[in-house]
């Protein structure tokens, strides 16, 4: 037996067939959904090239070929060519900005033939993941070193900028998923937490800005944001500085003044408690800055920065929103559920909710969904494909899809964790974080829970570019994973 034989046989045996099974399930399920979403009354033949369902078969078939080809490429190639692939892909993104004709307001589609167009942004993810893996696998890489993490972040932000320049903001946002991977690789959690806190301030603050606490002229949004800002900041001092004295002082200042102000407002003269809270926050920030100078611990400075950001974000965002153009403000308000505008900006989300809600427990059956078949939901075969699942297959089908996805992500975590080298692990986590992000945003927007950001649901949404892009992304990881044992030998 030659070494070659051993290796190819070994590869075949060490391919993760569970993932491939889940992949096939998702692709086939996705095709049925596309059939429902693309049903054409004039051309009911599901397999005709004239229909999207017919084309999706071709995209699926070619994806399998693509998958097989990738499985034949040895790991060495990905390893050595990672930066080249990255550079080539960035160049392609750059070229796309210039040569792509404008389609639906964006310049992200490259025409190949009359009817076939590809979207390079969908393929750039794997290149970034490879480059990140290669960079972080470098000897002596330390995520705590600002130069090392700086390059990694630059590798992420560069394609983001290019894609934003193509006016595909939604696709660009996906690259934030890499930060979840960086967190796994050791990036400080406080950064992730700060991002999370900002989103919470923004959403809660604006949504409840004009709701008032009973009997008091106090905005619930403002009150909640300030209370959260206090709590988060004090918790950070506690967790990162272990300084119980300061924690006690800050807690007394903040909560004490808030409680007294609330009681005064309730039993004596009603007034806006938030002024007192804002004062307490400023006092808190001053104390922390004082501690930073006094103890010369830079963590205090960072916490002070967080506190300033937390306190000011609410006021900044409400100012910004107030100065926004009407249609942009409406979009944000509809997103946050402040205003209801079923004929205008809220139309998609409203129709999507109707489609899903009308599905009931078991759904209306294959090709029986009226909402989707009659095109009440815009973009239903691409970004809003989950509506079709909800309408035609009901709660059982929609929850089923989510569970298969959960299994799929769980399997990817298991695979990523069993990688021995950093590159494969980083790549694996990049892949699963991207899938998770897509699932989170896409299904969330269809269910009316997250902002309407136009990104596809992997393997379900119609389209060759996205299907090929995700297949490429996944199968490079499967190939890397299949060789994990060979390297050990």
């Amino acid at each position, binding site marked *: 037996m030659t070494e070659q034989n051993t290796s190819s046989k070994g590869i075949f045996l060490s391919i993760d067939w569970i993932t491939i099974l889940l992949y096939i399930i998702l692709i086939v399920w996705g095709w049925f959904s596309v059939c429902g979403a693309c049903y054409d009354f004039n051309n009911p033949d599901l397999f005709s090239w004239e229909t999207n369902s017919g084309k999706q078969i071709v995209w699926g078939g070619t994806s399998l070929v693509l998958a097989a080809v990738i499985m034949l490429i040895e790991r060495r190639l990905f390893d050595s060519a990672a930066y080249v692939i990255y550079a080539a892909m960035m160049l392609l993104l750059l070229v796309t900005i210039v040569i792509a004709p404008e389609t639906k307001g964006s310049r992200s589609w490259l025409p190949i033939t009359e009817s076939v167009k590809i979207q390079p942004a969908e393929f750039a993810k794997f290149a970034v993941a490879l480059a990140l893996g290669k960079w972080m696998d470098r000897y002596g890489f330390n995520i705590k070193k600002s130069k090392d993490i700086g390059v990694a972040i630059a590798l992420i932000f560069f394609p983001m900028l290019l894609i934003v320049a193509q006016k595909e903001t939604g696709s660009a946002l996906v690259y934030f998923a890499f930060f979840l991977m960086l967190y796994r690789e050791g990036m400080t959690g406080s950064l992730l937490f700060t991002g999370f806190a900002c989103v919470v301030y923004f959403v809660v603050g604006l949504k409840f800005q004009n709701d008032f606490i009973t009997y008091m002229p106090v905005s619930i949004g403002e009150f909640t944001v300030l209370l959260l800002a206090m709590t988060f900041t004090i918790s950070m001092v506690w967790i990162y500085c272990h300084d119980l004295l300061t924690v006690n002082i800050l807690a007394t200042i903040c909560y004490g003044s808030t409680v007294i102000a609330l009681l005064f407002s309730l039993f004596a003269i009603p007034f806006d408690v938030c002024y007192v809270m804002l004062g307490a926050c400023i006092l808190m920030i001053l104390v922390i800055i004082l501690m930073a100078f006094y103890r010369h611990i830079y963590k205090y400075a960072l916490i002070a920065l967080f506190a300033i950001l937390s306190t000011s974000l609410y006021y900044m965002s409400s100012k910004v929103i107030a100065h926004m153009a009407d249609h942009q403000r409406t979009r944000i308000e509809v997103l946050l559920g402040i205003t209801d505008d079923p004929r205008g900006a809220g139309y998609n989300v409203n129709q999507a*909710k*109707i489609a899903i809600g009308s599905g009931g427990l078991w759904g209306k059956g294959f090709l029986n969904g009226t909402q989707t078949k*009659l095109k009440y939901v815009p973009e239903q075969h691409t970004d809003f494909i989950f509506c079709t699942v909800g309408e035609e297959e009901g709660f059982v089908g929609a929850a089923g899809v*989510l569970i298969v996805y959960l299994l799929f992500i769980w399997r990817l975590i298991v695979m*990523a*964790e069993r990688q021995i080298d950093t590159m494969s692990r980083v790549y694996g986590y990049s892949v699963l974080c991207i899938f998770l992000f897509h699932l989170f945003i896409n299904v969330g927007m269809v269910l009316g*829970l997250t902002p309407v950001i136009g990104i596809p649901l992997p393997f379900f949404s119609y389209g060759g570019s996205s299907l090929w892009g995700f297949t490429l992304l996944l199968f490079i990881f499967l190939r890397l994973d299949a060789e994990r044992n060979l390297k050990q030998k």
Partner: protein
Amino acid sequence: MNHHTYEYRKFVLAGIALIVVLSYIARLAYLQLSDGEYKTRADNNAFFNNIIFPSRGVIYDRNGKLLVYNQPAYDIMVVMREVTNLDTLDFCNTIGITQQQFDERMLAIKDKNKNPGYSTYTQQLFMAQMPLSEFSVFQEKMFRFHGFYVRERTIRRYATNHCAHILGDVAEVSKQEVDNSDYYAPGDYIGKQGVERSYETELRGVKGVEVLLRDARGRIQGHYKNGELDRKPVPGKNLTLSIDAKVQALGERLMEGKMGAIVAIEPKTGEILCMVSSPSYDPHRMEGKQRSTQMLEMQRDPMKPMINRAISGTYPPGSTFKTSQGLTFLQEGIIDSTTAYSCSHGFRFRGMKVGCHGHGSPLPLIPAIATSCNGYFCWGLYHMLSNRSKYKTIQEAMTTWKDYMVSMGFGYKLGVDLPGEARGMIPNADYYDRRLGRWNPLGVISIAIGQGEVTLTPLQIANLGATIANRGYYITPHIVKAVEGGEIADSLTKKHYTKVDKRYYEMVAKGMRKAVLGGTCRSANSSQYAVCGKTGTAQNRGKDHSAFMGFAPMDDPQIAVAVYVENGGFGATYGVPIGALIMEQYIKGELSKASEAKAAMFQARHIDYGTRER
């Protein structure tokens, strides 16, 4: 830095994935497993119920002459969302409206208060009932007017200038009619008056529906479940009226320039042969778009041409009522054929005086009817009401009298198959107790001669004639002879016997015959058939009303007729000759030359009613 330090973070990631999926499943459960609200909204989105209107039944007279039919008309519909690049000037010119009318109409469509079902996606009524002539011009240019559509409807057309009150009309349903019924939708048509209203259910048929699938742009994508749920419309049933169009036309001619009514009934069947209410109007005025303005004009007319006086007008019946009194007294044994009462130019007793004209005295019933003696019937009623051996109290006597009247079809609605029938007035003991306290026969004596509190509708007077013609029974007068593919109600074919025996009717008929041969109705005499008649001259605040009630031929009655001319003077002045002409027209099928001349004369004789509000 060893990556194992951070291995715990895989649980954070797995946790995030788990929380996302679980919260989404919870959201799905909330959306899909709660109530059916979303299902309904999806159905409202997708299903378009295309209503197919059945053709309304047409209406014939008793001889098969067409009276009412349908003609196609075209509603112009608009889908606001699709109106683009409209050349408003061209559009307005094509359909014959001004720019201002166009703007007003568009605003009215968009007004949610006036048009609650407004949607920019669906067809809204822009203009109703465009006639074929205008439509053909519009149709040629329609391709230029994006967003405008045509809905075919039918409008009611009249093939006659007569019968306006009988036929009635159709118009769009009112909001109230929509609310009170689960059949009608806004924009549907409904019968508003006449047989159009009373036979609405038969005439309209049943609407059909196609359940269509409509896409997000409002385009129809086919039948839901391949048409399984579609229903075909059921066409309306045709009506044959009992009206004889020629008799009706003559009646309307004769009543020109007069107020009042003529009702003729076929006694054997209760079929109404003619029902004239004057003043009348040309039913063509109710056709199509002009209806509302015409209606308004007629409602403002002090002569109130919209009222069907034949069934809604209540009048003192005057002497025509004496027949019913004679019948009652005979049956109750107050009088017999030989009982004679004296009449010295009227009824005079204890200071009570009811005047009468000169005739022989004393006299029995038959000549009393023939000469229309007031004294005779006042004495009769006096003896009845003060007969304490037969009735314990005056109240009991009065109640007995009232029961006779009710059995003859007075005091209550007869139940004619037309809307708006009045019941008239027959006083009872209770009524006088309340109004007069202690009372005696003299205080109410004028009811014996059809005056005082007694009022009847012309239909009830004609029905009295039909009852005497039948010698004791009547069939509820009705205007519809047959419903094609259906039946007329049982209540319209049942015989109603009065409380008086046939033999007494025979006597009253003889009295009426004598009135024609040598009494008050001499001008109704015919050489070809035996006419029976009774005049009426009813006192009221103004000039007396002229009335006639009669039937012919005496032994095989084909027609009973009542004529009532307001302020016409003596019964013999208008009532008798008009009644005679109606009888001749029906029995002979035409008028003789002499009669034709007489008809022309009566047509030209108008009564001046002034302009006071009536």
